[in-house]
């Protein structure tokens, strides 16, 4: 440890992520070259933040009803009458498309005696919302349009008993809801995201794969498993030397943070820099033995640029599209942005994920992880319907999802730590998590934002 550096100034040895990607033949997106790190403290994070039922109840009372949350993609509710239910804790929203193609969201409860109008997590299509208990009917615009035996309800009017709307807005093809009528506008909440993503065309993607898995860990710890690349060497590479990715960690006001790590660049910890062909062999080896002989990097090219070209060509053939305009960094790197409190989006080409985490309503030791793969829409072909989510329980392997491909086993590795972490939270003699100042700053940011809401 250096004595000369101030707290928070320490970085991994060698070049930074930004220094690595400026060597690419293609110009990386300007946002990737920004850095926005600040030292946020080095105190332990109490384990009770994860295990305490009182803490979870505070989150349900003061956090979740106040924040913007991704409810679905626009293509989930493509046609008038399509609806998607979004559940968070004991709150539930029905998001729908009206006859005039507006998107609206309602509290998922009949205004008569409170019966939920739609089942948890469900989707479907209807001409109107009809309560299964007594048949009160609401239009897609939420208006009470049929009140059976209305003679008995002189005190009920359309104004008093139409469905209550939630705030709803869209960004990047995602539909966000907020249960707080006084919440700030979505675009204020998004911070730098619209600017950083302005060239990524998220609107024109579609959901190719959707897996929803129950995880044996608190929702925050589940998110944290994906917030740092510090775990890569041990969790995914069996401790193999020089498997640490070159990573930038950045925190942006107020609700956004990110990491981006290179794929296929030189690890500066290596005593001798590998040749471009050796780097190519490392990249090729990730794909498995069925891929055959490793191609030879042409003279004068880096392995990264050459491999990115191959990936663009192969994905272009798979999806019948031209991806040649994608930069090497956007094609290969693991680009993960986080929007507080529970949404992650990867705008990259070969790693095209979005994540959403939700707490179990009744047990702080469990959570739900929605994992989406989003692919670019074909400009002329019909966009496929969003798939039915594959529901996985705690013990189920992600490899049951064909759509995740080789990444299924990687997600299993991430998940394998979770039950052990939950047990450890309860027995560890030191009563809190110790975090790295740089590599784990996003975790601290998450907890600080949660605390902002709980203390407000």
């Amino acid at each position: 440890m250096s004595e000369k550096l101030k707290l928070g100034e320490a970085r991994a040895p060698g070049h930074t992520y930004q220094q690595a990607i400026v060597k690419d033949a293609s110009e990386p997106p300007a946002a990737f070259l920004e850095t926005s790190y600040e030292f946020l403290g080095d105190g332990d994070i109490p384990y009770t933040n994860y295990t305490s039922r009182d803490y979870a109840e505070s989150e349900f009372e003061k956090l979740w009803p106040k924040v913007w949350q991704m409810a679905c993609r626009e293509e989930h509710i493509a046609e008038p009458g399509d609806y998607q239910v979004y559940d968070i804790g004991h709150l539930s929203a029905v998001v729908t498309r009206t006859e005039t193609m507006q998107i609206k969201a309602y509290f998922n409860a009949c205004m008569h005696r409170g019966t939920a109008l739609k089942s948890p997590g469900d989707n479907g299509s209807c001409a109107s919302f009809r309560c299964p208990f007594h048949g009160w009917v609401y239009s897609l615009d939420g208006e009470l349009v049929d009140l059976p035996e209305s003679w008995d309800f002189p005190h009920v009017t359309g104004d008093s008993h139409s469905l209550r709307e939630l705030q709803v807005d869209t960004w990047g093809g995602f539909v966000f809801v907020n249960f707080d009528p006084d919440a700030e506008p979505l675009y204020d909440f998004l911070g730098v995201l619209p600017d950083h993503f302005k060239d990524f065309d998220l609107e024109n993607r579609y959901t190719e794969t959707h897996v929803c898995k129950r995880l044996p860990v608190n929702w925050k710890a589940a998110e944290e498993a994906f917030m740092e690349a510090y775990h890569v060497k041990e969790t995914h590479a069996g401790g193999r030397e020089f498997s640490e990715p070159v990573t930038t960690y950045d925190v942006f006001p107020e609700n956004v943070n990110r990491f981006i790590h290179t794929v296929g660049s030189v690890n500066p910890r290596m005593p001798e820099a590998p040749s471009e062909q050796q780097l190519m062999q490392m990249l090729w080896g990730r794909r498995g033995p069925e891929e055959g002989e490793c191609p030879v990097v042409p003279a004068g090219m880096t392995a990264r640029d050459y491999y990115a070209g191959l990936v663009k060509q192969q994905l272009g053939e798979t999806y019948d599209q031209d991806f040649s305009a994608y930069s090497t960094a956007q094609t290969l790197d693991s680009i993960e942005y986080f929007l507080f409190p529970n949404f992650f989006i990867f705008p990259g080409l070969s790693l095209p994920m979005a994540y959403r985490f939700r707490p179990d309503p009744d047990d702080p030791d469990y959570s739900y992880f929605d994992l989406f793969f989003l692919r670019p829409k074909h400009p002329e072909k019909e966009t496929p319907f969003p798939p039915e989510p594959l529901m996985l329980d705690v013990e189920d392997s992600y490899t049951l999802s064909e759509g995740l491909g080789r990444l299924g086993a990687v997600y299993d590795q991430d998940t394998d730590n979770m039950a052990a972490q939950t047990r450890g939270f309860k027995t560890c003699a030191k009563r809190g998590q110790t975090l790295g100042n740089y590599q784990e700053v996003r975790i601290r940011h998450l907890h600080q934002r949660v605390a902002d809401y709980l203390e407000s």
Partner: protein
Amino acid sequence: MREITHPKIPDSSSAVLEAGGRSILLCNSGGTHYAIENRCTHQESPLAGGRVRNGFISCPLHGVRFNLKTGEPIGDLARLRVKTFAVIETDDGIVVALD
């Protein structure tokens, strides 16, 4: 075996077949045809007109969804499977086995 033949129908659509005193709903989801009883097990409303997508049909009345292959319902409202019928695609159309 009693059976009924019906022309193929477009993707994401359904058609009612009346046969042997039964109302059967022929559905096409993603290019595969299915046949189910045209009666929701929740409140016995017809399923005809419900959205067909991803191998499921949504009941138009309250939205209960049924797996077209197995008949299994999704969600809080229904416990019972909707009856399914075997189908065979032939050059003449879709043959639905009624027994």
